[in-house]
């Protein structure tokens, strides 16, 4: 019986990546909380997970060493948040409280994914050692 690491880690290897990306997006929202005309963004988790599992994202094949390495990131993952206030005066749609809670929630979910991954690794280790 062969152990396939791709399958052994399940869905959690993809979720950790998306959680870190979401942390980036929300941190950008908070850093730009006072920037005029900045629109708050977020990641569509369902689309991002589907993309990560299907390994989408297109890359141009390089046939010469001087070709530029072009990778198109998968589309449709980040979107703009629907503002809950029609106008804040400067065109900024960041709601600080909402973003802070989202960031915290995302950090917890990231930790949960890591815990799941860790227990997967422990299971693998004990299977390999045969203890």
């Amino acid at each position: 019986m062969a152990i396939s690491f791709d399958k052994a880690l399940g869905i959690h290897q993809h979720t950790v990546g998306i959680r870190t990306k979401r942390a980036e997006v929300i941190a950008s929202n908070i850093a730009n909380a006072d920037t005029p005309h900045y629109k708050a963004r977020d990641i569509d988790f369902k689309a991002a997970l589907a993309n990560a599992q299907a390994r989408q994202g297109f890359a141009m094949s390089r046939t010469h060493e001087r070709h530029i390495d072009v990778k198109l990131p998968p589309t449709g993952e980040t979107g703009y948040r629907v503002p809950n206030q029609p106008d804040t005066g400067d065109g900024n749609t960041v709601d600080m409280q909402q973003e802070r809670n989202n960031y915290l929630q995302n950090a917890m979910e990231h930790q949960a994914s890591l815990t799941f991954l860790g227990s997967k690794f422990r299971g693998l280790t004990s299977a390999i050692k045969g203890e």
Partner: protein
Amino acid sequence: MSLFNVLDVAGSGMSAQSLRLNTTASNLANADSVASSVDETYRARHPVFAAQFDSARQDQSAVPVEVKGIVESDKPLIRQYEPEHPMADENGYIYKPNVNVVEEMANMMSASRSYQTNVQIADAAKQMLNKTLNLGK
């Protein structure tokens, strides 16, 4: 590793907010600096923030904030008739800065709160990174 980008973004937010705090401090310090002509009078200064969209990067999820520059307020200066004042011009007028102290106090609180939030974001990112590095131990 995109969690390092979170530290960059939070750092950009912190430096932008501390610059805002700096301008607020100089505005408040100079709120009562009088001058004898319009040109010499201190004017309230405010930073202009902008989102730093880097078109060269393919992944646009991390957007740091940058300070585009500092603008001086063009609100009218306060012209006051005080012939006894040593700085008074030949007509007996002195000029006071157009600093709105109440506005600056509110600005100061907003800037320090935003700075604090960015510190917390960096701290949380650090914890997330630490947890990731300890994975499998």
